[in-house]
């Protein structure tokens, strides 16, 4: 199997997944509505509640990166649900009977989910800008912040792909992935300052990659913690959030891409 064929196969599969976005407008509406809702909800409800000074504006800026991180991680669950649906409907059997590259179905799927996340990030950014979020750095730094968020979500997509093929039931998959996603996105610096967490939870939160990618995005967007008394975490992961995020993403892809591909070869419709 040549690399060229592999890339073309993945492209064909990605195109097929993207057609679905076009054909089911409701899907696009909800894909974009929920991020808008997240931004408004967290910025006003939580932002106001957490901010000690009561002003909210600084905290709102601070929260945006956390909301971005959480939402793209949620978006990655689509990967698992989509694959589970394909297994159930026999589409995976059809693909497996074709002389295509066996990783292309997964590569195509994870890539089309990146496109999905790009749409989501654009919508959230616009909403964020409307409620007062500002990028206080350069264009390139901000762009790199968005790329880190996407790379991070891409890695999670591969975990979800593996789960989706392991448990090919779209209903179960949602619950199964939330077991992973909720602790990851909430036991982190996304919405609460780490200082408020008790000992062991704080250690988990400090090394939680969601914290790292959030921290990295905050730095790159120029949205620091508005609390003047906040003490920066000394954990290596949060001292080097960009590097830690990248290492984490590479390791996850290196582990889960082969796992998911092996599971794909085994997957049978039931």
């Amino acid at each position, binding site marked *: *199997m040549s690399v060229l064929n592999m890339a073309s*196969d993945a492209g064909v599969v990605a195109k097929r997944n993207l057609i679905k976005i076009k054909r089911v407008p409701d899907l696009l509406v909800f894909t974009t509505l929920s991020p808008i809702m997240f931004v408004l909800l967290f910025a006003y409800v939580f932002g106001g509640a957490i901010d000690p000074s009561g002003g909210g504006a600084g905290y709102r800026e601070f929260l945006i990166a956390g909301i971005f991180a959480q939402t793209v991680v949620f978006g990655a669950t689509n990967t698992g649900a989509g694959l589970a649906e394909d297994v159930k409907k026999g589409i995976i059997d*059809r693909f*497996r009977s074709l*002389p*295509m590259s066996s990783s292309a179905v997964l590569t195509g799927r994870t890539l089309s989910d990146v496109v999905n996340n790009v749409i989501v990030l654009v919508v959230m950014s616009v909403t964020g800008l409307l409620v007062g979020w500002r990028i206080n750095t350069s264009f390139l730094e901000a762009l790199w912040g968005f790329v880190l968020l996407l790379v991070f979500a891409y890695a999670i997509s591969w975990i979800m792909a593996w789960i989706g093929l392991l448990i090919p039931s779209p209903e179960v998959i949602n619950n199964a992935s939330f077991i992973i996603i909720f602790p990851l996105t909430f036991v982190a610096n996304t919405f609460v300052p780490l200082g408020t967490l008790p000992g062991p939870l704080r250690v988990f939160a400090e090394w939680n990659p969601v914290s790292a990618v959030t921290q990295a995005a905050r730095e790159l967007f120029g949205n620091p913690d508005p609390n003047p008394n906040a003490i920066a975490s000394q954990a290596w992961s949060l001292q080097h959030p960009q590097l830690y995020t990248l290492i984490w993403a590479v390791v996850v892809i290196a582990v889960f891409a082969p796992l998911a591909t092996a599971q794909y070869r085994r997957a*049978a419709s039931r």
Partner: protein
Amino acid sequence: MADAIRATGLVKHYGAVKALDGVDLTVREGTVLGLLGPNGAGKTTAVRVLTTLLRPDAGQAEVAGVDVLADPRAVRSRIGLSGQYAAVDEYLTGYENLEMIGRLYHLGRKHSRVRARELLEQFDLADAGDRPTRTYSGGMRRRLDLAGALVADPPVLLLDEPTTGLDPRSRTDLWEVIRRLVARGTTVLLTTQYLEEADALADEIVVIDHGKVIARGTADQLKAQVGGERLEVTVSDPGALTPVAELMGPLGVGPPVLDEHRRSMTMPVSGGVDVLRDALDRLRAGGIKVDDAGLRRPTLDDVFLTLTGRPTDGSDSDIDEPVTAEVRS
């Protein structure tokens, strides 16, 4: 002539269920093999093994000259599969489905497009070709799935119950398509529940049950194997079937088969019209009201019934007793 499909000793167990229990199959190039068997016999499992979707627990298989276990990808480029349940993407149009399959067979962009339109035309889907398949009827999806198997014009086709859910016209159309392909040298393995279909299309028939081959041969050979003619008696009152079976018993060369739904008794006999005359005399003497009585050649249904001890719908009964063919409504 070479064999396009050759499988030996295929075994696949699911827990205690022996889906395949030592199946041997050969299909000569350019012929049609009909794989027949009741529900749960192992037909789909056999097709999945031959199409590289499932690894058998034991046994070997070669398709189009390539070892299925050693080089699955090479097999995939030489086969077309249409599974038991139509596997079409409901969000894509019929055209997009076929074009995608062409691309994944690496036919190239241009050829894939031309081929997709050609097949839509051939399967009477040209008008619906640019609609998402979500809007298709069951039979239209089925036809699109079959077209998918033909995209690369592969030398070997494996079709799992290809005509289930098709209306009579689509069914005979598909038979025509298959006949034309076979005339050009394509090899076809198809499973079916319809004995008339195997009779019409298959050069050779293999009957499996409980994962084992229980008979093989041409339709004529199988019919000969279960004996010559049948005596069939239809009564007005289904309650009279048991006395009829008792009365007729001594005339038969095999056990009578009762079908309460059709109020009929069928029994293998030998001796031609003399037996029929004898049978009618006995029925009159017994005072039984008869709607219809006659002699007929065995159908593949009789073959099936005799070999598996149950009718095609798969209900169980013992072959030594008079067999009651319960037709489920």
